[in-house]
């Protein structure tokens, strides 16, 4: 559009320089942890929970809850950014790096994209490269407590460098693929990749 529209009398909330540097464009910092999801919260008994990786790997692998929590765990302190405009700084999680999971499955060299499946039928897609090199983890504890169902428990994917709809709650598994297939929000007008620093909120951004 032609010309910048300034909002007369609008100054906004002042942030510290450090907060400003850590807040992507169009985002605001909240101390809360808002809950956003499109349907009822799934409640998965731990005895029925599992996590799988299938598709383009040499052997499909599935972990039960008991197996999964035996995997080497790490702590992660990350900033998270939701496309609905809120950013939360210094969130503290515990879980398993996706690298640890991938090391168990013998990846096929054609695997380039991943569709993430959740309990409750949610899906999201992202390049495999964005799940590697300690950029992503499956979290099952938040703030020192078991992850609450409304925040995605028993376990959710966390990919802090992308908008939070990529960090699928109630995660159930990965499908490794050669080609990219749009997930739930990606099919409903949201950006396919979702980099908050480039403000990739919607298709065409």
């Amino acid at each position: 559009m032609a010309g910048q529209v300034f909002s007369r009398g609008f100054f906004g909330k002042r942030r510290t320089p450090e907060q400003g540097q850590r807040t992507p464009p169009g985002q605001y910092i909240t101390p809360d942890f808002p809950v956003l999801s499109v349907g009822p919260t799934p409640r998965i008994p731990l005895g029925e929970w599992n996590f799988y990786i299938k598709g383009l790997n040499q052997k499909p692998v599935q972990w039960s809850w008991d197996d999964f929590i035996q995997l080497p765990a790490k702590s992660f302190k990350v900033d998270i950014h939701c496309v609905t405009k809120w950013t939360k700084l210094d969130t503290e999680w515990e879980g398993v790096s996706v690298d640890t999971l991938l090391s168990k499955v013998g990846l096929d060299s054609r695997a380039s994209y991943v569709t993430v499946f959740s309990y409750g039928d949610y899906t999201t897609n992202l390049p495999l490269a964005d799940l590697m090199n300690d950029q992503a983890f499956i979290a099952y504890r938040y703030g020192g407590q078991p992850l609450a169902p409304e925040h995605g428990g028993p376990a959710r994917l966390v990919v802090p460098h992308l908008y939070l709809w990529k960090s699928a709650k109630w995660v159930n598994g990965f499908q490794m693929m050669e080609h990219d297939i749009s997930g739930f929000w990606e099919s409903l007008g949201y950006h396919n990749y979702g980099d908050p620093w480039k403000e990739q909120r919607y298709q065409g951004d």
Partner: protein
Amino acid sequence: MQRGIEWQAAILKAIRLETPRVKTFTFTLPDWTPHRAGQHYDIRLTAPDGYQAQRSYSVASEPERVGEIDLTVELVEDGEVSTFLHEGLVVGDLIEMRGPIGGYFVWEAAQSEPLLLVGGGSGVVPLMAMLRHRAAAGSNVPTRLLYSVRAPMEVIYAAELDELVRASPDLKVLLTFTRAKPQGWEGYARRIDQAMLGEVMAPLSSTPRAYICGPTLLVESVATLLLQSGLPRELIRTERFGPSGGPA
């Protein structure tokens, strides 16, 4: 790749006070496209130093109203954007916005199932867009709005809801007051529970499609109760307004 959703400079046409803390803003859009009831727009404010803030607001008006939209905005305590909208805007001002956005929490009059709308506080806004769309499109689908508010003065759209009910025998609006009720009130005066949902849904001839919008606790509770009462998960759609997660 579809065309991007472009920012446009909307003109504020009118401001209406709905409740002491809620105003409806009517904007004229130079590049209007029909929305689907339940969708939202993003608003962007720019300060003199270039600092920008954005928020999402549900459209309250029906898509049949060509060229303009209503956004109903609750004044949030210490809210960066809502405070400016409530206190800084005058008719004729330009505001940057883009939309419509969101393709899941939407209802179209062509859908034939009965409709169960459950709203809490300003969560009624996207549900009102659905009711207005239903009326404008001449839909007769049996419809219930169960609307939870804390106190009588917080009922948004009270007069228009009465008119919609008078105009459509298939529409009923049921209020529940959770903190203070009107004098002589004989209706619901408690948080939404299983019994209340059962009574509201009982007259519907078949399984409804449910849309729930409001504070997280209300949405979590109602969605769970509806699942427990046998409504299939795929017929329950939710939209949650934070503690600060929704429009601020």
